[in-house]
């Protein structure tokens, strides 16, 4: 019999699929994709930067959905989905930030610009979700943690919306959305990043690869959270049973 773990047929299949896609992605990103006329080789950083924000957005949206459903149904399942998704979102947001900083240094000459609304709002979003994760580890009852983090999970989606529309709402040095459905429909490829041909194919492939990784990590993270919850309940049951035995022994000795 296999050792107990959080792996299953689904996660093993998904993991193998991810590894196959990752091999293809590395070939596309590092060999197939040409250097960009303006960004040179640093355009290759976009193939981890863009998929990271795609997964982070999806994860934070899932945190929002999980938080709403927790409040509506008081379901532990959705509470743990929200918590797991937030952690995955923060992980991908970390990759988003440092890949963006490296790209910025090569393209703009600076790692960070606090006056850029896109960068500032992304930093705020990152801090909000790190705060969410901090809240989940506070010394409170499970119900209090679930309730408070659900509120943060719902309010937090506001920062995601601001990040997504920051380029449109405020003047920014950051480029416009790379894959814009409206642009794709009209075939417009204006902007710093000429999103066409090999760049577009590689970007879409990289997003699919990162989505597979994000889902694989999410499933495992959820299962870890679920097991932690089960273990906590078992510990409480055992502690109650121990107390019962102790008081029974004490009463017996008194008689």
């Amino acid at each position, binding site marked *: 019999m296999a*050792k*107990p*773990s*959080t*792996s*299953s*047929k*689904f996660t093993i299949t998904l993991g193998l699929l991810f590894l196959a896609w990752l091999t293809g992605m590395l070939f596309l990103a*590092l060999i197939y994709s040409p250097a960009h006329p303006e*960004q*040179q*080789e*640093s355009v*290759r*950083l976009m193939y*981890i930067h863009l998929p990271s924000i795609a997964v982070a957005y999806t994860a934070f949206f899932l945190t929002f959905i999980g938080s709403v459903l927790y409040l509506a149904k008081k379901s532990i399942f959705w509470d743990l989905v929200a918590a797991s998704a937030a952690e995955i979102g923060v*992980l991908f947001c*970390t*990759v988003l930030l*440092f*890949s963006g900083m*490296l*790209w910025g*240094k*090569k393209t703009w000459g600076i790692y960070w610009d606090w006056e850029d609304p896109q960068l500032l709002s992304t930093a705020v979003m990152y801090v909000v979700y790190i705060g969410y994760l901090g809240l989940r580890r506070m010394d409170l009852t499970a119900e209090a943690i679930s309730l408070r983090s659900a509120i943060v999970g719902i309010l937090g989606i506001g920062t995601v919306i601001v990040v997504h529309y920051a380029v449109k709402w405020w003047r920014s040095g950051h480029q416009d959305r790379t894959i814009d459905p409206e642009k794709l429909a009209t075939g417009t490829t204006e902007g710093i990043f000429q999103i066409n041909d090999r760049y577009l194919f590689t970007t879409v492939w990289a997003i699919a690869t990162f989505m597979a*990784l994000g889902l694989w*990590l999410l499933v*495992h*993270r*959820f*299962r*870890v959270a*679920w*097991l*932690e919850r*089960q*273990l906590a309940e*078992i510990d409480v049951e055992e502690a109650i049973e121990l107390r019962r035995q102790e008081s029974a022994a004490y009463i017996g000795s008194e008689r």
Partner: protein
Amino acid sequence: MGWDFVIIGYVLAGLLFLTYSVTLLRKGRALAARVPEDKRTFLD
């Protein structure tokens, strides 16, 4: 021009994902071993 930062970016991202994945798998295995089989729901 720029290959140095590309390599740094990819290596950092790879290390981050690898460390997180391995930690998650190890933690999952340790927890699953402590939880009785009938309570190991959502694992398949």
